[in-house]
């Protein structure tokens, strides 16, 4: 069982009805109103769920391999384009050296791969103090934050 963390430490999982994108698309009416967890595979881009994203308590984005970076764009689009404010969880090949980027793209929970050391992952959330770009948590790039 993967260790589930947020930026503060280990967290408890909560039970939701887990569905795939196809299940959602085929059973929208009957599923609407339930407490739902949607899992997006890495080849399922954010536009495929679009504004429907707000129907879910939790969206999991799968990283089948750490080097598959599609999930970063999916996360940003869900947060910044489709207005998703629920839990956004990274699942799959979730490694210490990726969690800082994931946090900036809008993830707020992380199912670490089994062999990953929790303390190192927590420490990695504060790798950089003041990055150059805007991100899902702060729309201002450094050039709008610089105090000179």
């Amino acid at each position, binding site marked *: 069982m993967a260790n589930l963390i947020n930026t503060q430490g280990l967290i408890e999982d909560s039970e939701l009805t887990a569905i795939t994108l196809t299940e959602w698309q085929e059973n929208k009416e009957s599923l609407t109103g339930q407490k739902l967890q949607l899992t997006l595979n890495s080849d399922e*881009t*954010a536009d495929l769920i679009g504004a429907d994203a707000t129907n879910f308590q939790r969206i999991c984005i799968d990283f089948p391999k*750490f*080097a*598959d*970076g*599609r999930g*970063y*764009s*999916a996360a*940003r*689009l869900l947060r*910044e*384009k489709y207005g998703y404010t629920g839990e956004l969880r990274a699942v799959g090949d979730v*490694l*210490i*050296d990726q969690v*800082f*980027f994931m946090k*900036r*793209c809008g993830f707020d929970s992380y199912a670490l791969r089994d062999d990953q*050391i929790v303390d*190192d992952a927590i420490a990695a959330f504060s*790798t*950089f*103090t*003041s*990055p*150059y*770009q*805007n*991100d899902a948590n702060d*729309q*201002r*790039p*450094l*050039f*709008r934050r*610089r105090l*000179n």
Partner: protein
Amino acid sequence: MYVYDQYDQQLLNERVAQFKGQMERYLDGKIPEEEFLPLRLQNGIYVQRYAPMLRVAVPYGAMNSAQVRKLAYVARTYDKGYAHISTRQNVQFNWPALEQCPQILADLAEVQMHAVQTSGNCIRNTTTDEYAGVIAEEIVDPRPYCEIIRQWSTFHPEFAFLPRKFKIAVNSVPNEDRAAITMHDIGINIVKNDAGEIGYRVLVGGGLGRTPILGEEICDFLPEEDLLTYLDATIRVYNQFGRRDNKYKARIKILVKALGVERMRELVEEEFNRIKDGEGKLTQAELERVKQHFVDPAYKALSDEPAALVSAREEHKAFARWLERNVRKHKKAGYAIVTLTLKQLGTPPGDITAEQLDKVADLADQYSFGELRSTHNQNLVLADVEQTELFDLWQTLKSLGMATPTLGLLTDMICCPGGDFCALANAKSIPVAEDIQKRFEDLDYLWDLGEIDLNISGCMNACGHHHIGNIGVLGVDKKGEEFYQVSLGGNSGGNDANGSSLGKILGPSFAREAMPDVIAKILDFYVDQRTDGESFLEVYRRVGHTPFKEAVYGKPD
């Protein structure tokens, strides 16, 4: 040049600490090889044929003397006493120990240097014209835009794991492509519209490698402040839809070909329109802040052609030759742009020793406001030399072996490290370059031939840019033996208003020993065919491919 403030320095220091930790975890066995790979690549470390190779970033080719001295220190302390200038203006060390790389990066950070994103499937170092800011022809100095792109791309949270590497180049000279922008994933041409406003013509999907393709126009005029949001939108489309199943089909050029540039434009514009007026939009304040780092140095009020220069030129034929070939007109009267050629016989193109680096740093301090540039032709440039000092400088450069008056000529070759160093190479490239240099040593002959780009790559990854050489040489492997394929007619557009073209393969490949003769046949045919000072490329384009082919292989029966 750009000087870091506390934010830039803090980010770099945090990067050094991050990689130190990653290396410790790797050496402790806590990160498997496969997962350490992208971490070391994004810190510039390749594992090569004999040793790791560390590629240090030289953003858009700009260095100050303190940085050059630090490179000399690294070469001496951690390497075998030399460094190599790459075809993307970076500096490579071929022999550092893997465990020492975090310390090297810490040393480099002291002078605001790093190896950030010089490799890996991320946004690489942005390149531009090596004469940026000192030639009158440019619309505006492109370096502030390159620096803005550098900051935006550094540790970009969304684009650290793209389908493949991603290269951006910026050109700011009208009717010329001085940064090979048609060969980049994104090429940015700085332009002015009829209202006099600065903007960008954007190309997408160019690239060399296995499938060479020229970039296509995706936007004819992008306003100045929309630079970063447009890049975000374009790369966001690529990150989602670029192929990831086959690394040879993963560059953005393949996506653009698959979708067609019109569909690509629709997708990019849809995303761009969503974000273009958000907080990510560049501000005039930021443009101004960065531009302030690139204002002119304290030029003196001087005149062109001072008496000292005129008399030295008359007295010394070799000096006159060097002036004509390696020294270029400066935008400011009384100044000159000097190229230091790293192409002398017996040294691999682009190699420079620690001692030479130290000397060059001194020359930069003495003659050129303490700054130096690296070029994609693997040379160095002192951009702001007073014309009265040129004779003294030339004498010093001669003693350093950096005054070979061959800039732009046949022996000013571009050459990758090849099979002598690189694990990817199919064949050696440096010995081919050396054989050609030896055969065509005669300066009068080289001068008579005029400007020819001869580019050599040791494999189809094309680090030696063979596709865009007027004469391109590609190392190939045939049943374990090294052979060389020749192509003709490539051009990066750097010196020809007719624009860019990719070379066409001449025919079956040759053994290494045959290469100087093959080049000689091509050159002889060119000399025979040319009229009134036509360049090699002009003759090739006029007479066509087949006559050249027949000159080398003979006429078919």
